[in-house]
C-alpha cells in the first residue's frame, strides 16, 4: 500500500540541488536533477554521515560534501571504489508538486 503525500512545489528545490524533509527518524534529502527528476534518500553518507543534501548534484548522482563519495540517486549505491548504500524512498512529481510515499518513510525505523 502506498500513501503519497504532497511535500512541496518542485520549484522549492533548485535544479541540481536538494532540500531536506524532517521526519521522526531523521532527515530525508530530496534531490532535483537538471532533468527535473526527483529522488529521496537518507540524508546520510555511509562513510562518515556527511549531509548529502549539501552535496553537488550531477547527472543522477550526488557527491558527499565531506569526503567526495559519489552516490547514485537512483539506487543509493556508492559509486567507484568505495562501498556502501544509502536507503532510497519512492518520490515523484505530479503537476509541479513533489510527492513522497509516507508508508515507506514511516517504515524506515532502525529495523
Amino acid at each position, binding site marked *: 500500500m502506498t500513501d503519497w503525500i504532497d511535500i512541496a512545489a518542485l520549484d522549492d528545490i*533548485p535544479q541540481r*540541488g536538494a532540500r531536506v524533509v*524532517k*521526519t521522526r527518524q531523521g532527515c530525508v534529502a530530496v534531490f532535483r536533477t537538471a532533468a527535473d527528476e526527483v529522488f529521496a534518500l537518507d540524508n546520510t553518507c555511509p562513510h562518515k554521515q*556527511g549531509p548529502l543534501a549539501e552535496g*553537488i548534484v550531477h*547527472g543522477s548522482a550526488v557527491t558527499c560534501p565531506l569526503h*567526495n563519495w559519489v552516490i547514485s540517486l537512483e539506487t543509493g549505491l556508492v559509486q567507484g571504489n568505495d562501498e556502501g548504500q544509502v536507503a532510497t524512498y519512492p518520490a515523484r512529481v505530479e503537476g509541479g508538486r513533489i510527492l513522497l510515499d509516507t508508508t515507506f518513510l514511516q517504515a524506515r525505523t532502525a529495523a
Partner: protein
Amino acid sequence: MTQNIIVIGAGMASGRALEHLFDAGADVNVTLFNAEPRGNYNRIMLSPVLAGDKTYEEIVTHDAEWYEANGVTCRFGERVASVDRAAKTVTAENGDVLPYDKLIFGTGSNPFMIPLPGHDLDGVIAYRDLEDTELMMAMGPQNKVVVIGGGLLGLEAAAGMAARGVDVTVVHIMGHLMERQLDEAAGYLLRKALVDKGITVLCQANSKEILGHDGKVRALLLDDGTELPCDLLVMAVGIRPNVALAAEAGLAVGKGIHVDDQMVTSDESILAVGECVEHNGAIFGLVAPLYDQAKVAAQTILGEEAAFVQKELSTKLKVTGCDLFSAGDFADAEGREDIVFRDPGRGVYRRLVIEDNVVVGTVMYGDTADSGWFFGLIRDKTDIAEMRDTVIFGPAYQGGAPVDPLAAVAALPRDAEICGCNGICKGTIVDAIEGGAGDLTAVRAVTKASGSCGTCTGLVEQVLAVTLGDDFVLPGAQPICGCTDMTHEDVRRMIKSQELKSMDAVWQECAWKTRDGCHVCRPALNYYLIADWPLEYLDDPQSRFINERKHANIQKDGTFSVVPRMWGGITTPDELRAIADAADKYDVPTVKVTGGQRIDLLGVKGEDLPSIWADLNDAGMVSGHAYSKGLRTVKTCVGTDHCRFGTQDSTGLGIKLEKALWGSWTPHKLKLGVSGCPRNCAEATCKDIGVVCVDSGFQVGIGGAAGMDVREVERLIDVETEEETIVVIKAMTQLYRENAKYLDRIYKWMNKVGLDWIRERIADPAERDALAARFDLSQTVYQKDPWAEHAQKKAAIYRPVANLTLEAAE
C-alpha cells in the same frame, strides 16, 4: 572452514600480518586484544608527532572502519590474563574465555627502566606509546626535561621537545652518542648538531639518583654530584621483549619468544611476530624485519610455504637537520680496513669498513643521499676492487659516465620504506605495479603509498619509472576530470577564444562526456566563467562546494563555522560584544581565534545561519569569506601606531588592501600579510602575497604558503608608496585570476609560468594598470556581502522543505 584467530597486541607487526591475511582473502574470524586503548598505529612515527610534524590521526594505520570492514572483533584497552594451550583458549581480564585455532603473539616490548632510586616518581616516563608522547608534547619553553639515553629513541625524544622550545638535557653513559650505530667521529658531529639545536648533551655521565619533591620528579643527580633540575624525566635506554604472558603459558622463551623460520613458537598453534620475538638468537627493533615476519606469519597461517630470513639492517635518525645513516658492521677487527672521507667545513663524514674488498659496514653523516647505493654494496657483497679509489665518493663517480638518477632508487632493497606515513616498503609498491597499477593514482589506491602527507610522491614515481621501464610515462597534462579529455588550460583558452559565457556553452563546445559535469569540473568552470566574464556570466550556486554555496565552513558533524570580517585584524569592543552575544544566542560551542587574526564561531546549526548572520550584519560586520576560494584575510602587525620598530602604517595598509580586495573570487584561497618592518610579526613572508614595510617603501613578495607546503615568498617588486602597493597587488591578483588553474595556489602557478613572466607583466605600467582596471570592474559585481543577501532573500533554503515529524506521530 573458518579459522578462529586471536591476536594479542595491536602493533605494527600484528597489524601488517592481519592485512596480509585479509588481502589474501583468508577465511578467518579475528579477535584483536590490545592493552593500549586504541588500534594499530605507526609507532615509529611518534617522533614526528612529538616534533609537531604530524598528528596522531596521520599515523593511524588501521581505523575503526577497516576493522569493521574485515570483521575484526576489537578488544582495545583489555589485557589477556592467561592462555590455556591444552584447551586452546585465552582468558580475558574480565573472565571471558575464547577458543582459538591459531594464536598470534604480538606483545611487543617493554621499555627498560633503570632501577635508579626514584624511578617510580611521578614524571618519570619511558618513550613508548602515545601517552608518553602526549606528556612530552605538554612541555613548553617554561619546562626543563632530562632524557637518559643517547640512542635513537632518546635523541628523537630530545630533538622533538627541543623543537617545542623545551630546555632539554641528554644524559648518556657512553663516550659518544648512538655508540651502537655510530663511530666516535660521527657521534661527535651529531653531538655538535644537537647542541646547535639548543640541546645540552652530557656524555660519560653516570646517573645516581632521581630526586623528587611531594612524590614528583624534581631533578636528576649524577654521581659527580651534578644536579640537573627537571619537570619530566624520560628514560630511553632500551627495550626488552615482552614475554611474560608467553612464559606463563609455557612457551619456549629466551630473550624473546622463540620462533622458527615460519614464525611458529614451540607450540604449533601459536605464532609470534615483532619485537617480542627471538629468532636464531636475534631480537628486533626496526620496522623492516617486523614487516617481513608479519608476511611470513600470514603465509604460515594460510598454509603457504614461507621462511623468515634475517637481513642486513640500516638505521636512520628521524631528527630534522641531522642527516645520519648507518648500516652493517663497523667494529674494528683483524683484516678490516677503513676508508674515511671527512669535510668538517660542510659537516660531512663518511666511513666505509672493508673486508676482502667487500663493504661490510658504513656510517654516513651530513650527506646521506647515496646511502641506498652503499647499502646495496653491503647487501649484495659487491666486489669493489675495481672502484676502490673512488668508491667513497658515491655512485656518481663510478665509471666516468653520469649515473642514471634512478639508479639510487633501483638500488634500494625491497624492504626499504618509501612511505613513512603508511609504512609501505618498496617491495609492496613494486608488487602493486607488477599487478597492474600503472600510475601514481593506481599505486595510491592499491597500497596507500604517498596517499597521506604526499612527501614521498617523487620517490613513488621513481619506483614506477624503475619498475615499468620504457612503459612509464611521466604524468603529462591531466584532463580536468572524467567528464572531458581537455586540461584546465585547454578549457580556459576555449572560454576566452570562443567567448563561451555559460556552462552549457562549455559543455557543448568542448564535447563534455556527461550531462552536466561532476563535482570536480563544475566548480572549476563556474570559477573560470566568473573570472573571464564578470558582467555577463551568472554565478551558479549549484556548482559551488557547500562552503561557498552557504557562505560558511562545513564541519565534520554537518554544522558550520562562521567568521565575520575584521579588517586588517582590527576590531572594536562593540564588535566583540556583538560576536559574544551571537555566540550566546545561537549556542555556539567553540569560539576560536584563527591563524589569520579573525574570530571563528564553530558549531553553528545550518538552520541558524541566516539569523546569526543577520545579527552580525546588524552590528556592522560582513562575511569574512573564510570558506572561499577568494580573498580571506590580510594579517597585519601594529606598524607605526604602537611599535618602536615599525617603519610604515602596516595596519592601515592591511585595512586598505582588505577593503579593496574582499569579495573577489580567485583560483584558490588567497591570504595576505603586511608586516611593518623586517621583524615580520605578521608573518607576511609565508602568505600568498606578502608586504614587508621598510624605510624606503614596500617590498611585495608572492608565492608563500604555510599549509601542505611551507614556502617563503619570492620578491616580486619594491615600490615606494602605499597607492602603488595597492595597484600592484590588485594587478597581481587579477593576473593570477586570469591565468591560474583552479585550485592552484599562487606558488604552484608561479612554478609553472615562472616568476620572471609575472614580474614583466607587473613591472610594465600599462599592463599593470590594465590588469588593476579589470580587477576593479569585476569588484563592481562581486564585492558584495553574501550574508546580507542570503539572510534577506534566501533564508528559506536553509530550512527543511517540509516537516513530517507531526504526521508521522499520528
